[in-house]
């Protein structure tokens, strides 16, 4: 199945972030590419959400949700630029 993009993750990410983060710029820690999180490749068929860098396919962000808990992994991101 073809991946979607980070737009689709907006609702899920609002469960763990107090800001809308799909419109944030971010840097891939794998290849250094900078892009909006909305432009990442999104895999929503996995047990959780996986956002991958559109340039190098590095896993930027992983979110697994269960009843009353969520696991958030952001090892593939160097930074996210939040508008404060």
């Amino acid at each position, binding site marked *: 199945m073809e*991946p*979607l993009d980070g737009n*689709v993750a907006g609702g899920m990410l609002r469960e763990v972030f107090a800001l809308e983060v799909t419109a944030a710029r971010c840097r891939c820690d794998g290849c250094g590419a900078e892009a909006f999180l909305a432009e990442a490749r999104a895999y929503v068929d996995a047990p959780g959400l996986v956002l991958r860098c559109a340039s190098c396919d590095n896993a930027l962000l992983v979110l697994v949700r269960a009843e009353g808990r969520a696991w958030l992994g952001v090892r593939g991101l160097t930074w996210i630029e939040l508008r404060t």
Partner: protein
Amino acid sequence: MAGAAVLGRLEAPLAWRVATVAAVREETPRVRTLVLDVDGWPRHRAGQHVDIRLTAEDGYQAERSYSVASAPGDPLELTVELVEDGEVSPYLVEELDVGDVFELRGPIGGYFVWEPGHGGPLLLIAGGSGVVPLRAMLRTRPSDVPARLVYSVRTLGDVIYRDELDRLGGDVVVTLTREQRESRRSGRVDAELLREVGFGPGEAPRIFVCGPTSFVEAIASALVELGHAPERVRTERFGPTGR
């Protein structure tokens, strides 16, 4: 206080709300628009979407995202295309009736969004039901912002919002990929068509592309080939998911 300023940017958690179907409009044999009443619905922005959650009697839940079809300030409308073997769309398209309720949350998204303050001209490029969020943008556009919608569909019968789009005359270019019709264009959207009917890079249009993944990838390449600046291009890919 700096702390207060930061807190001012924080948004309230997205609550699941109950939506009641107020009206239903058949757009094509496979697509319909749901007009919804949602208690406490905040004003949305053109291009945003909602998540819908359906819960089965045994507790199994399915979530899907659908673009908002209506302009900010108007009643919330979602336009849904039937996905064969889908978990959610058959219910929304074939079963749901006026007075029925379901859960949704939103509005969601800040990237694929256009507001009049962002300026124009607006170049909107849609594949299939990717026209839905772009229709919300067209309805939001003040009359002094030039806009062009380039819309790829299989057949004339698949055109969503056909009467409304026909009324926009030359601002809408429909191209049919699976049939030929007199006075209608046929063939896929490519660099040649965009050069002919779109705004050129010199006019610095704001560009929004929405459709299936393969469509969006092809259009993005064509736009780069034409010399459009990547930062003026916003994309949204959709497709059936097993989520």
